[in-house]
């Protein structure tokens, strides 16, 4: 058999291959030759063959048949063989295969070899890929070598020990004695590896950590020597003496000083020294400064030192080198929680980094910017962030949009600003916002009563521009449905100039400033009902609209039937969709159709404006609107609003309130259902929930609700309440000190156990009664649900009334009795009163 070709020759040959196929052919040929050579157990050429195999392995070809050969090479006495053998082992073997265990004995022998380079090879291999079994077997040898005086071996043994500890943490104790005088070495290699070993031990075991704390002074001394010593050619890097060792020592100091006052104090000086004396012109110096800053921030350093650290980071931010800027942003992010004010000083630089070309830097800058937003800088920051949102990559947009919403929610200086900002986000990054932002925004809009006209007009215009961004479209159609009348009438109550940023203001169709008023109103007054309906119908048929969006627009169209005059057109649209393929749309259309036909008298009441909704706990701190003046509120479970149950009843034993529930009408109105209360000014719309799919084929949807489900049996699209005039006489429940409370009743047909009582509170005195709260309690056999009152101010001189709806479940048809508690403020002083109501008319409960 001719001698196998040499490695270099093989490499040369393979590189001449012009195609992948040609290369594959050559490789296969050579592999076959190598395989037969292995079979012949040829010692002379084994080394050459394995080397060639390793080359082919690097190109990506399988080389597993060489594994055993590597072992044979390792076992050989020749140094060359061992060198290639160990290399092969590190490349081809891994601890998942049992083959590697065969190495153990060889390694053990080689660890005790007479030649230090052989020992070195075995230490290296063990330290790179030793499995836990191997480590267990050979830890003793490693420990022995850790104590040797040969620094070449000692440093390798230290790192090998690190690997052993990582693989088999229980063995850590074993190396403890050997660490005794590791730091007294002069050799930098040993020092460096010893520090690594100590770091590893301290990170893994708190006991070790406390044990090694006593080394702090020694470490400080070594570091000092490194800085103060003159030029040392052997370890110098750009004028700095052994930066690798310096960084490692700083890292160990960080771990030792964390949470410990004494150690932290001992290192204060040296840290200050390093921070001020290190050359910053090259990367090396900055690497050391970076590590120093990390250490200063982590230990219990004095405030002066911390400020020094943040300033270093600030300087980094201005550095031309991108890497330095990146590192600065990362560190600032870590420290922004603890040293917020110091970081704020560098805010403008951070915001500039948003414009950087580098993706990693942009992301860091964005995260940091959000962390720095506060009430004072919100306007300026938001401008920058919105600009960023416009121009950033799609990967960022979702996170950025969410961040903006959160920040706006927390710090919005005015409702108008908040709405403008959210609208801006929806129009620029609308497709990337999270789904739950739609209900949040709708809630926000509803609550800003004075902004309704302005908002709906802007949304309408945005819709005209672009209907592809679903969240925007959904919010817009909801608003148009609710406030379509304001849209068509062209009113705009907004007087102040809109604070939009200049770029945005230049967009066509948007605002000009005309003596402080916007031209919006002039433009919008040309919108006709037909145009609005055109837009909404367009949404229904567009391919861009998702089923959810279609549902929104259908409901919006329906709502407009009470606000617009072109009812016939709406009727037509609705009836068309009665046969839609989409079950959800079909269901709604059929119900709305029914509204037009059989229940037309209910329609106005059903489709009235939404009342103010309570804010729920979303992501940020929100105020829970106190409607009853009580802090408890149970919000009906919906997919979007998490329920807050805080039964903080101010109830004492006398009052037995079942919740004092405020029913929150949830944003996505699908089937509007509702008890129309008697002539009251405020109609409580029990909007419901449900949504997105799960359509039931029956026309009467049973909406799953979490709280007192029985009370909601009546909630279906069928009318449940009798005509008011059906005959239960009203009664006066309370009349004292000028405050008169009247009860009017309704009872439902399908569920005669439910009585709905509407209270009307009037005030005949000359002063208003403010902070009016009405509470009621019933005996245990009944259940009570209190809905939101129309307001909590009872105007003086009977100029108006406060109405509130109570629903009582009386399954046992017992005589209705109630205890009521009234609290209000009259002429500056608080008034509280308890009363019993017993004179309920029999028709209300029999």
């Amino acid at each position, binding site marked *: 058999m001719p001698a196998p070709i*040499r490695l270099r020759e093989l490499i040369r040959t393979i590189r001449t291959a012009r195609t992948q196929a040609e290369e594959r052919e050559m490789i296969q040929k050579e592999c076959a030759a190598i395989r037969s050579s292995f079979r012949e157990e040829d010692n002379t050429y084994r080394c050459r063959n394995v080397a060639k195999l390793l080359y082919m392995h690097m190109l990506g070809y399988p080389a597993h048949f060489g594994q055993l050969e590597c072992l044979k090479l390792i076992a050989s006495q020749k140094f060359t063989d061992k060198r290639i053998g160990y290399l092969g082992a590190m490349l081809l073997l891994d601890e998942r295969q049992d083959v590697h265990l065969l190495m153990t004995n060889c390694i053990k022998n080689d660890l005790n070899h007479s030649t230090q380079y052989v020992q070195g090879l075995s230490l290296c291999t063990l330290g790179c890929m030793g499995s836990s079994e191997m480590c267990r077997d050979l830890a003793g040898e490693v420990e022995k070598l850790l104590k040797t005086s040969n620094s070449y071996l000692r440093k390798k043994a230290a790192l090998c020990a690190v690997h052993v500890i990582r693989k088999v943490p229980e063995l850590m104790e074993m190396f403890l004695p050997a660490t005794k005088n590791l730091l007294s070495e002069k050799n930098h290699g040993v020092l460096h590896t010893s520090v690594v070993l100590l770091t590893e031990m301290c990170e893994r075991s708190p006991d070790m950590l406390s044990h090694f704390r006593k080394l702090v002074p020694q470490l400080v001394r070594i570091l000092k020597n490194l800085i103060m010593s003159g030029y040392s050619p052997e370890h110098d890097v750009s004028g700095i003496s052994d930066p690798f060792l310096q960084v490692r020592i700083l890292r160990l100091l960080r771990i030792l000083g964390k949470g410990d006052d004494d150690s932290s104090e001992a290192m204060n000086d040296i840290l200050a020294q390093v921070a001020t004396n290190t050359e910053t012109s090259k990367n090396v110096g900055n690497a050391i400064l970076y590590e120093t800053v990390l250490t200063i921030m982590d230990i219990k350093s004095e405030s002066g030192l911390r400020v020094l650290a943040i300033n270093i980071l600030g300087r980094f931010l201005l550095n031309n080198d991108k890497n330095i800027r990146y590192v600065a942003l990362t560190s600032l992010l870590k420290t922004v929680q603890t040293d917020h004010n110091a970081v704020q000083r560098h805010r403008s630089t951070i915001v500039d980094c948003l414009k950087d070309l580098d993706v990693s830097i942009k992301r860091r800058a964005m995260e940091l910017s959000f962390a720095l937003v506060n009430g004072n800088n919100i306007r300026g920051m938001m401008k920058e962030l919105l600009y960023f949102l416009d121009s950033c990559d799609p990967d960022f947009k979702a996170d950025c949009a969410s961040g903006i919403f959160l920040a706006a929610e927390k710090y919005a200086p005015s409702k108008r600003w908040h709405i403008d900002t959210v609208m801006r986000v929806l129009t620029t990054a609308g497709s990337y916002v999270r789904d739950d932002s739609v209900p949040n925004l709708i809630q926000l809009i509803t609550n800003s009563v004075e902004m309704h006209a302005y908002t709906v007009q802007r949304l309408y215009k945005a819709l005209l521009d672009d209907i592809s961004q679903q969240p925007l479209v959904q919010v817009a159609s909801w608003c148009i449905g609710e406030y379509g009348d304001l849209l068509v009438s062209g009113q705009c109550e907004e007087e102040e100039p809109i604070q939009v940023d200049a770029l945005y203001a230049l967009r066509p169709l948007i605002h000009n400033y005309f003596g402080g008023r916007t031209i919006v109103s002039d433009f919008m007054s040309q919108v006709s009902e037909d145009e609005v309906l055109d837009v909404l119908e367009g949404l229904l048929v567009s391919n861009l609209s998702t089923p959810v969006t279609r549902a929104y627009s259908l409901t919006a169209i329906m709502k407009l039937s009470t606000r617009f005059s072109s009812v016939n057109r709406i009727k037509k649209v609705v009836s068309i969709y009665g046969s839609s393929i989409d079950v959800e749309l079909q269901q709604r259309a059929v119900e709305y159709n029914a509204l037009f036909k059989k229940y037309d008298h209910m329609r106005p009441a059903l489709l009235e404006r939404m009342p103010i909704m309570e804010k729920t706990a979303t992501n940020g701190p929100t105020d829970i609107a106190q409607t009853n003046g009580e802090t408890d509120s149970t919000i009906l479970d919906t997919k979007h609003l998490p329920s807050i149950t805080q039964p903080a009843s101010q109830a004492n034993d006398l009052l037995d309130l079942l919740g004092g529930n405020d029913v929150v009408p949830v944003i996505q109105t699908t089937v509007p259902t509702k008890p129309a209360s008697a002539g009251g000014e405020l109609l409580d719309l029990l909007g419901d929930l449900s949504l997105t799919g799960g359509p039931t084929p029956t026309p009467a949807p049973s909406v799953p609700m979490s709280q007192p489900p029985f009370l909601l049996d009546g909630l279906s699209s069928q009318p449940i309440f009798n005509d008011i005039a059906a005959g239960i006489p009203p009664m006066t429940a309370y009349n004292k000190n000028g405050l008169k409370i009247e009860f009017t009743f309704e009872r439902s047909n399908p569920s005669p156990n439910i009585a709905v009582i509407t209270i009307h509170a009037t005030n005949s005195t000359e002063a208003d009664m403010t902070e009016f709260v009405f509470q009621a309690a019933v005996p245990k056999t009944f259940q009570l649900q209190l809905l939101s009152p129309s307001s909590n101010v009872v105007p003086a001189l009977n100029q108006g009334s406060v109405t509130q709806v109570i629903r009582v479940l009386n399954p046992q048809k017992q005589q209705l009795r109630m205890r009521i508690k009234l609290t209000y403020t009259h002429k500056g002083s608080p008034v509280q009163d308890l009363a019993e109501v017993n004179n309920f008319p029999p028709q209300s409960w029999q």
Partner: protein
Amino acid sequence: MQFMLLFSRQGKLRLQKWYVPLCDKEKKKITRELVQTVLARKPKMCSFLEWRDLKIVYKRYASLYFCCAIEDQDNELITLEIIHRYVELLDKYFGSVCELDIIFNFEKAYFILDEFLLGGEAQETSKKNVLKAIEQADLLQEDAKEAETPRSVLEEIGLT
């Protein structure tokens, strides 16, 4: 450090050193993905990127990319220095190293790396000492072989 990869502008792997146990398939997958990601970077971008849960530090020297994967608590800037030190060592050993040197003498590149790093950490911070050790080991190789046959040892085993 978890691993170090050297690859060309065309994406060909020239050296791979793994300090964590992974199967061959996994290594190939990681290599492929990482090479793609790094090669897609524009020249002016910074040397660090986040990839999976690791930090990747890379630097281009002529036609070769040196790419290291470090853990969260490791110092990125000093890793750049480590990469630079390795390049300096190769440069000193080969005399103005270029990619071809590393292609044709890959096993030597590995030997040098193994004298500089062990288990992912630097074992020797002095350039001189690393080079001295390599020199001695090479001599050892030659002596051992010379003792055996009269022919040039390195020639014989095809390692010239």
